[in-house]
């Protein structure tokens, strides 16, 4: 792989030619639209704090705007929608393991908080 991918005799590398054939060329319009929406979503998440929403409404809106922004960045700016599924799954599925970790640590920290409160109330 090392030799024949590099030298083509045309002054261009193999990847340059491959990239030309499957390059990520998309209309500028789609970037501008995504950019605009990222601005709107950021403004919305700032407004959550500015207005001072509290409780479940606040948390659900924060998560919603966060996931929408993350999705737009990964899908369009990082070109994930135009990649093959083999790469998409290899990159996007492993982070789901973090959610399991979140659940484990949430249970653990609940327990820690409980034992701390018990020991403070009972004077250790």
């Amino acid at each position, binding site marked *: 792989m090392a030799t024949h991918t590099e030298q083509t005799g045309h002054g*261009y590398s193999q*990847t340059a030619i491959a990239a030309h054939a499957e390059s990520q060329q998309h209309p*500028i319009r789609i970037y501008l639209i995504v950019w605009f929406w990222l601005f709107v979503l950021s403004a919305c998440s700032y407004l959550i704090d500015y207005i001072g929403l509290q409780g479940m409404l606040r948390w659900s809106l924060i998560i919603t705007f966060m996931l929408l922004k993350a999705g737009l960045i990964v899908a369009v700016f990082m070109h994930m929608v135009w990649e093959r*599924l083999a790469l998409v799954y290899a990159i996007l599925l492993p982070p789901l393991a973090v959610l399991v970790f979140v659940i484990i640590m949430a249970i653990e*920290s609940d327990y820690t908080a409980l034992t701390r409160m018990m020991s403070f109330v009972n004077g250790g």
Partner: protein
Amino acid sequence: MAETTLNGFEAKEAHQNGLRGVAADWSSDQRAFKSASWGKAMMWIFLLSDTFVFSCFLLAYMTVRMSTVEPWPNASEVFALHIAGADIPLILIAIMTFVLISSSGTMAMAVNFAYRRNRNATVALLLATALLGAAFVGMQAFEWTKLITEGVRPWGNPWGAPQFGATFFMITGFHGTHVTFGVIFLLIVAFKVWRGEYDRGERGFFTTRRGDYEHVEIMGLYWHFVDLVWVFIFAFFYLW
């Protein structure tokens, strides 16, 4: 890379789509990522590992915040700025968010113009991205200075749970470091585009691989990732 020929002009093999395509790509006994070069695939795998690093930081933050019995400092007040006679909550963080999103936009445009072989526009957009990134780091330095003078330390602060300082400096510091390195590499890539190294396919000083305009896209992947991480930090650390 067995299916790529020496000159690269051979007719392209048709690839299957959907789940069958996933199985076929992974079991092909060749490169699994048919549409991505090794450089792009390695950047994605690096970003995946970086995702786990930042996930662990945010998880540690969640753990200490959920388990502490002292009240957590109100980020809305801690990061408020006194402008024009009024305290505007979280305003610096909001500006930083907009600056970073703008830089992501200019980066995406730079990638686009790089593939169109428009060198001037690419260099200008890369420099704009680097400038916005540097502005972000500058504002972060200002924010750190402000909090340190107000008495925030990794082991305590005037408003409540001492873990606030530890997680704040760790998470924003690690992110700021990523932005700083991103700015340095943006300047290097911009310089290479400006000199036309990607047109001539000159070898890189570090990898000795031939350069091409895909490097701008790979640089873009890193930069968008930095913006992506900030989306999560903004949501979980500043807004929660």
